[in-house]
């Protein structure tokens, strides 16, 4: 019995996020697929690495937590970067345990792929023959990456269907914290300040950006945070929001008065 990388042969039509990626996988291409929000590195048609400006890289994930000192990271890059075997070097030099590196790298790969495969109108480019200096870790079939990316989109929308939470600065609400916040979400909540975005918080925590999105959507669903909506007033462009004059400071009171009046009129 061999471990399998969860491969399925049949791909439903909607699971193809990028026809170009699909074609590159079919022709077992090697190179870098550069999309609007990130890059996927392929080797023999499999995804071997992914990067996105929206997600912390494996260096940030490993060094923020103290799992690896930043000197250790830079030493590995200096020693093995040119040979494109940085991951291998980190393990062989005893700096990062093999299993931990695989878990961390796979997490970073799916994380960056989620953003790299986000819908875009910018055409993708593929540079044949390019490979990443991190080197081989644990290749993943293109189908798995596409299926997982779709599943993740659905997961986010099931938790709280507001995509602005993923990109806008996040602010705490006035809503009191009336139920215990799980420790991992608490660490995210502590960094919410009306300025930081999900990406900023992920960088600061050294946590996968997708995990941060999940935490933020859960916090939003609990009413504890909300995205800062882009201000539309004051600008000439865009629909102007009409501010209605405030009738009363307390809408509940107004409702009660109307209710009383209606009852008295009976």
């Amino acid at each position: 019995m061999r471990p399998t990388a969860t491969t399925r042969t049949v791909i439903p039509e909607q699971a193809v996020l990028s026809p170009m990626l699909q074609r590159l996988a079919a022709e077992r291409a090697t190179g870098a697929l550069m999309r609007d929000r990130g890059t996927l590195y392929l080797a023999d048609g499999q995804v071997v690495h992914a990067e996105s400006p929206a997600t912390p890289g494996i260096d940030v994930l490993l060094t923020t937590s103290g799992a690896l000192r930043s000197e250790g990271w830079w030493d590995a890059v200096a020693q093995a970067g040119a040979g494109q075997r940085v991951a291998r070097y980190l393990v062989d030099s005893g700096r990062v345990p093999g299993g931990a590196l695989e878990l961390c790298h796979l997490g970073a790969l799916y994380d960056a792929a989620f953003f790299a495969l986000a819908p875009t109108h910018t055409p993708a480019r593929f540079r044949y023959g390019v490979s990443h200096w991190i080197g081989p870790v644990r290749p993943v079939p293109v189908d798995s990456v596409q299926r997982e990316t779709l599943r993740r989109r659905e997961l986010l929308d099931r938790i709280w269907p507001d995509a602005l939470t993923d990109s806008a600065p996040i602010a705490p609400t006035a809503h009191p914290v009336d139920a215990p916040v799980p420790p991992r979400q608490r660490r995210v909540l502590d960094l919410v300040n009306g300025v930081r975005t999900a990406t900023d918080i992920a960088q600061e925590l050294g946590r996968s950006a997708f995990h941060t999105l999940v935490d933020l959507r859960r916090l939003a669903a609990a009413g504890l945070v909300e995205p800062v909506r882009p201000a539309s007033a004051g600008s000439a462009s865009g629909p102007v929001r009409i501010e209605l004059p405030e009738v009363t400071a307390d809408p509940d009171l107004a409702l009660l008065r109307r209710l009383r009046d209606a009852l008295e009129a009976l």
Partner: protein
Amino acid sequence: MPGIDECLLDVMRLPGARGAAVVDWTSGLALGTIGESPNGDHEATAAETAEVARMAAEQPVFAQAAHTADPAHSALRGPARPDRSPTAPPGPAVEDVIVTAAAGYHILRFVETAFDSSVFLHLWLDRSEGNLALARIRLGEIAERLVLA
């Protein structure tokens, strides 16, 4: 060098092991799988077990019992460890979740990593051939070995 695959092969050597997976409980992603899965679909199984693992990991009733020491300190954070930087994520308070079902035993073992993650090992064990107590201990050791050199 033990990696995900070696660790899964180790798990399958346990008597009565039917299938196993390394799963991320925040996303429900299967990072590696081996053997059978109860519904014939490792990915669906991972998403489902991840939900159970998350519920267990996030319930204050399980988390607080371990260390109720300093209420002023961030409530659920464990005691500071000398071998970790202060920004290191706190270790999981829950070690494992065991479900005994008609079709077998399920052990979800949380994996404590030095970096921020939410990973657990899932073992599906045959009821007649498996030894739940032994499997639980061995799975804990394997989970530790997975992230240690």
